[in-house]
């Protein structure tokens, strides 16, 4: 294998994507390990290597002497051509062994547009794509984890099982069970039936789905002893949860080229469009001592000169300033940049800004998400215009000249006024800058990015229709015309991708055929604009007799059985309905720290969240 690879690696771009050998990679003797896990990221190396969850689980599994986890990424087109031409199967980077020989082939589901890449990787590996064609041999077990598992139904027919929620404990429990049962000679279906008894493990082949005549789901019925509802896993003591001291240090530059400490999990905000804000509940944080110790260890072992304190909203950490003070004493001495990728507008203080600019000055990003206060109340994005202006002023005083503003279009209840509001808000930022007598030298650059809203499961907007494409295009045009200043740049997404995303996010099992059809007709790496082909997707819907609008653009009743209703992410349906009603009434919900809104996520803690 190694020999064969060597003769082709010089013919591809960035060959070090395909040969492993990085500092921090874990190599074991395969004769001495019991269970081998191929951790597959359904995108190319440069993207997958940036992913924090993979780094955590890679190290966690490898801590166990007799288990070996390796990395697998999707090849870029140039490499795929060579692999198919030369008969090189998909292999893992550490051992260069074919993925097909592994016990577990585990994918992480980070975004819907990666689904076709999964099918392509299974095919490249020589593993049957449909679960039912894998036979009774226990290996390889094709599994998946990650946020999109909250509605895994479109992928149900391709996977043996899904791992719901946080993987730090359940992954090892699953591997232990596998080792025991394999050694006793168990078959695939015997193992799957047993695995379904582990909390957080969903085995889709053990559930029968029935549909109404109108295409909506009628019922999901478990077979045998499979639980009627599968609940996600949560780490209760987050301060003590396993965290790696070393990561694999890539040779090539990757998307997020730095080490990061996950300072908190969950979010106190409850923005109604944001799936992550609900999926990762409840809010839990690490102590400053833990954060600093983990940060130091990572810097020392990896040699990176950038450390990021990451989470959904780092400034919500209750002891952030204290943490920053301690961390900065260390990083400044060692010429390490400290970055905080997710700061919020409203509690972004002068002293926090001083601390991060002491190390590095770069552009600032804010996400007001909607152009008017009315619509921000609807989506519960509790940021006021004054707060935004105050923060921009602090930033401009600090010498920043680049501001990025993120918005969404097609939000529930949105009107043309809300769209014009986006341009107005950007204009106010421009005026603020030019009204400052002692503003920084250089030109101001305000960029607006407006994505199309995609309703997601487990959010209060899971009932909402996605806005039709024609209407989105009309509104994009309104925004373009409303922007007057040359200092403001607008970028907007292709809306076909958003519709496909919306279909897959809230889709059911019947979509498996669509995915297969798209893949068979050459579709994969669909998250890359150059490979996404809307025509291929719409043709596949046609072939399968399914209507994308049924999934994406239809309002769903509160009573409708959702394809994912047998999956429990600990936020209750009643809570989501309450929040949906409040959204339409334009009533905000305070943060979890101010007042519990009763979502139900605290049940795993056995106490109140705060």
């Amino acid at each position, binding site marked *: 294998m190694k020999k064969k690879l060597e*003769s082709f*690696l*010089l013919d591809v771009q*960035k*060959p*070090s994507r395909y*040969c*492993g*050998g*990085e*500092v921090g990679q874990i190599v074991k003797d395969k004769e001495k390990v019991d269970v081998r896990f191929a951790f597959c990221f359904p995108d190319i190396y440069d993207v997958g290597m940036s992913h924090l969850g993979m780094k955590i689980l890679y190290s966690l599994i490898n801590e166990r002497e007799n288990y070996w986890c390796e990395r697998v990424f999707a090849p870029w087109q140039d490499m795929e051509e060579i692999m198919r031409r030369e008969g090189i199967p998909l292999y893992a980077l550490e051992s260069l062994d074919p993925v097909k020989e592994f016990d577990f082939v585990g994918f992480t589901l980070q975004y819907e547009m990666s689904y076709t890449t999964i099918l392509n990787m299974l095919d490249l590996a020589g593993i049957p794509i449909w679960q039912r064609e894998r036979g009774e041999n226990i290996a390889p077990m094709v599994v998946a984890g990650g946020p999109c598992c909250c509605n895994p139904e479109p992928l149900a027919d391709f996977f043996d099982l899904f791992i719901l929620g946080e993987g730090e404990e359940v992954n090892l429990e699953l591997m232990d069970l596998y080792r025991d049962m394999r050694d006793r000679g168990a078959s695939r279906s015997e193992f799957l039936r047993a695995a379904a008894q582990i909390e957080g493990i969903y085995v889709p082949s053990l559930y029968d789905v029935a549909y109404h005549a109108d295409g909506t789901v009628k019922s999901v019925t478990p077979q045998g002893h499979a639980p009627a509802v599968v609940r996600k896993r949560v780490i209760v003591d987050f301060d003590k949860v396993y965290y790696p001291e070393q990561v694999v*240090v890539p*040779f*090539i*530059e990757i998307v997020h080229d730095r080490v990061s400490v996950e300072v908190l999990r969950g979010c106190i905000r409850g923005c109604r469009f944001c799936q992550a804000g609900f999926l990762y509940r409840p809010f839990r944080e690490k102590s400053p001592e833990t954060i600093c110790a983990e940060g130091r260890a990572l810097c*020392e*072992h*990896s*040699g*990176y*000169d950038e450390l990021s304190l990451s989470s959904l909203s780092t400034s919500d950490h209750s002891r952030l300033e204290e943490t920053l003070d301690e961390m900065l004493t260390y990083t400044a001495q*060692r*010429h390490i940049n400290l970055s905080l990728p997710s700061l919020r507008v409203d509690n972004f203080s002068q002293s926090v800004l001083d601390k991060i600019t002491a190390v590095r000055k770069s552009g600032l990003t804010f996400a007001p998400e909607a152009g008017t206060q009315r619509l921000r109340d609807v989506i519960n994005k509790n940021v006021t215009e004054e707060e935004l202006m105050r923060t921009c002023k602090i930033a401009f005083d600090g010498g920043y000249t680049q501001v990025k503003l993120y918005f969404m279009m097609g939000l529930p209840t949105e009107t043309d006024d809300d769209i014009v509001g986006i341009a107005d808000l950007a204009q106010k930022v421009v005026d603020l800058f030019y009204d400052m007598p002692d503003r920084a030298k250089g030109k101001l650059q305000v960029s607006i990015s407006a994505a199309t809203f995609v309703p997601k499961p487990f959010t209060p907007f899971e009932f909402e229709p996605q806005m039709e494409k024609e209407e989105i295009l009309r509104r994009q045009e309104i925004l373009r015309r409303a922007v007057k200043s040359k200092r403001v740049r607008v970028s907007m997404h292709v809306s076909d991708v958003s519709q496909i995303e919306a279909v897959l996010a809230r889709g059911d099992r019947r979509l498996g055929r669509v995915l297969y059809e798209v893949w068979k007709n050459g579709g994969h790496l669909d998250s890359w604009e150059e490979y996404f082909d809307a025509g291929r997707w719409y043709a596949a819907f046609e072939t399968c007799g399914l209507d994308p609008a049924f999934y994406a653009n239809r309002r769903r009743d509160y009573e409708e059985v959702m394809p994912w209703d047998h999956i429990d992410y600990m936020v209750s349906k009643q809570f989501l309905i309450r929040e949906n009603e409040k959204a339409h009434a334009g009533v905000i919900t305070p943060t979890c720290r101010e007042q519990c809104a009763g979502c139900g996520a605290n049940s795993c803690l056995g106490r109140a969240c705060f």
Partner: protein
Amino acid sequence: MKDYRIVFEKTGRMIYISHLDLNRCMLRAVRRSGLPAWYTEGFHPHLYLMFPLALSLGTESVCEAMDIRLTEEMPEEEICMHLNAALPEGLHAHDVHTPQYMTKDIGSARYEVILQGEGLSEAWETFLAQEQIIAPKHTKKGMKDIDIRPMLTTEEMHTEGDKLILTLRLPAGNERNLNVGVVLSAFGKHADKPFLTKKVCRTKIFCINGEEFF
């Protein structure tokens, strides 16, 4: 403060690491090694590292040079030891000197090349017998066809079975530079028969004055 020149090998999987990536990899290795590296002054201090001569992707080497400045003097073996503990497989420091020459002094480099195939030694002879060898070469003004024959010296050549083992000397450095890959693809076109490139390794760097570069 003292400058050191570290001589290291780049072999195995490391031949797929580009020069830019090697630079980044070495920066991190120095940071991991705990060596008292010197940082530049100013608002964005960075670790000072310099590579006198780049190596192209796909070529091995046993004689790469990297210059580093330490804030204090250290025994040379100790520098090697610390760095090697932090380097990935395929990168290995084996010597440390006080730099004698500068980048501008570099004049040429020696390569060991092993090719495998039928009738290669005759092909190489006829390749060299040509008056001109026109090959496309990267220049500052983009790709250009130039005559590489005058730049190509075969210091030694012998065969072992179906293997042709060559020792080549090619110009290297700021003034004139010829990539061994350019020579091999020109030979490929000339030979017009299939062969495998088993090994391409830079074995020594020389100064314009003929002395070994260190």
